[in-house]
């Protein structure tokens, strides 16, 4: 079984590679698009995976950060993350893993309690972020006309939720 190890490859020159793991491809794609729009000191590459282990026949750069994405509306996504965690080497959890829990805003749709994800994150000594993806509204001003509101579907905004009881990353 292939296991992800943090230091088994040489780092790329001025590149950062982030791996997002989650069942819902559309969600991961939106997250990746939003992240790439932000300024980054290094060249950013984002790998999207449904689950671990990753296909072994591919030549990929060293992974600097893994974010496990859980959709609180779907028990299936939590199950998938729990199974994927087994394929990550213990040394990765020294500050190179994080959890993203999405969908806490719609309480009625949540089938996973927030504490479940918090406990999972605590077990793995990694931070957890609760957030939701929003479509941001872009206001365009035309000369002499009232402003028109349009939704730019490509622009997404991460709105952070108050994070309960996360332990600091690192040993």
């Amino acid at each position, binding site marked *: 079984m292939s296991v992800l190890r943090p230091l088994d490859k040489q780092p790329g020159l001025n590149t950062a590679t982030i*791996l997002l793991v*989650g*069942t*819902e*491809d*559309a*969600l991961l*794609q939106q997250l*990746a*698009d939003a992240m*790439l729009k932000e300024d980054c000191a290094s*060249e*950013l*590459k*984002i*790998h*999207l*995976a*449904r*689950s671990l282990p*990753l*296909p072994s026949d*591919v030549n*990929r750069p060293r992974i600097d950060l893994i974010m496990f994405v859980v959709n609180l509306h*779907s028990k*299936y*996504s939590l199950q998938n993350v729990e199974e994927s965690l087994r394929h990550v080497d213990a040394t990765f959890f020294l500050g190179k893993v994080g959890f993203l829990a999405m969908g806490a805003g719609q309480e009625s749709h949540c089938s996973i309690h927030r504490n479940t994800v918090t406990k999972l994150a605590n077990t793995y000594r990694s931070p957890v972020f609760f957030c939701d993806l929003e479509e941001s509204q872009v206001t365009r001003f035309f000369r002499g006309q009232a402003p028109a509101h349009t939704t730019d579907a490509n622009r997404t905004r991460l709105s952070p939720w108050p994070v309960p009881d996360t332990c600091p990353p690192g040993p």
Partner: protein
Amino acid sequence: MDETVAEFFKRTILKIPMTEMMTILKAWDFLSEKQLQNVNFQQRKESLVQDLVLLCEKKRASVHDAALLDIVYTQFHRHRKVWDVFQMSKGPGEDIDLFDMEQFKSSFKKILQRALKNVMVSFRDAEENAVWIRIAWGTQYRKPNQYKPVYVVYYSQTPYAFTSSCPLRSNIPLLGQALTVASNHHKIVKMDLRSRYLDSLKAIVFKQYNQTFETYNSTTPLQEKSLELDIHMDSRIIHENRIEKERVQRVTQETFGDYSQPRLEFAQYKLETKFKSDFNGDILAERKEPLRCLIKFSSPHLLEALKSLAPAGIADAPLSPLLTCIPNKGMNYFKIKDK
């Protein structure tokens, strides 16, 4: 004109939205073009309705004409009713007779009128050899209630009929019998299929969905799909499980086809199975009687939602055959028992 008939006209015309008024009245074909031109359609609805009722009165419209208008309205607003599906069958060794629409209509009417004294039946022919039947039920001593009619849509070249849900359940067997006998069939069975979308029910029952053999250039849509994936991908985003994604797309396409699914609002599963448990000595597993449980899936467009489950990553592909068999089996009500 009788007061009740005038009231029936008024209420039926009031139901029609202003935007559709002209279209529906033209389809009704009772008031001539000239007469319609003389009516002021720009006034408030109540006054317009009054003018139209007066016109109908002048033209000596009967309750049957009003019933026809009601049928036209329902044809335009068929999604306001919930439709059941009935399937008829001929007896073994029976010849396939030539279907005579007029004979069917008179036979159908006679059967109902013989059984119930006060019943009003109206017919309107439609495309594809179909006939829309409107039935207003009365009792021995009461005239037919025009505000709770039942609609039947019968496709004469097929053994299928669609009926709107009947408020008076006791009349359903009679309705079935009239349909069966009038159309020279032997037996009628209610299918476990129900929806608001009559056209989708038709598509399921006549197997008119997913006709992949229609287009000879069917390779072009597939090519477009793979291009779509490439255009959206930023070169800095790498999909690790591309092979798995393609497998899921392939399985979904094999199960559901390329074209849009017929529209259903729900699927209901009635379980009468014994409780199965992994734990030994679980109290529920010891019960001898089956555990009764009802599971209902609802959606504005159930089959499209099921089709998008696996690609969205919410479920594994392939989906349970209990979900994917819905259009093939023509059922959205299931009873699951232990074998």
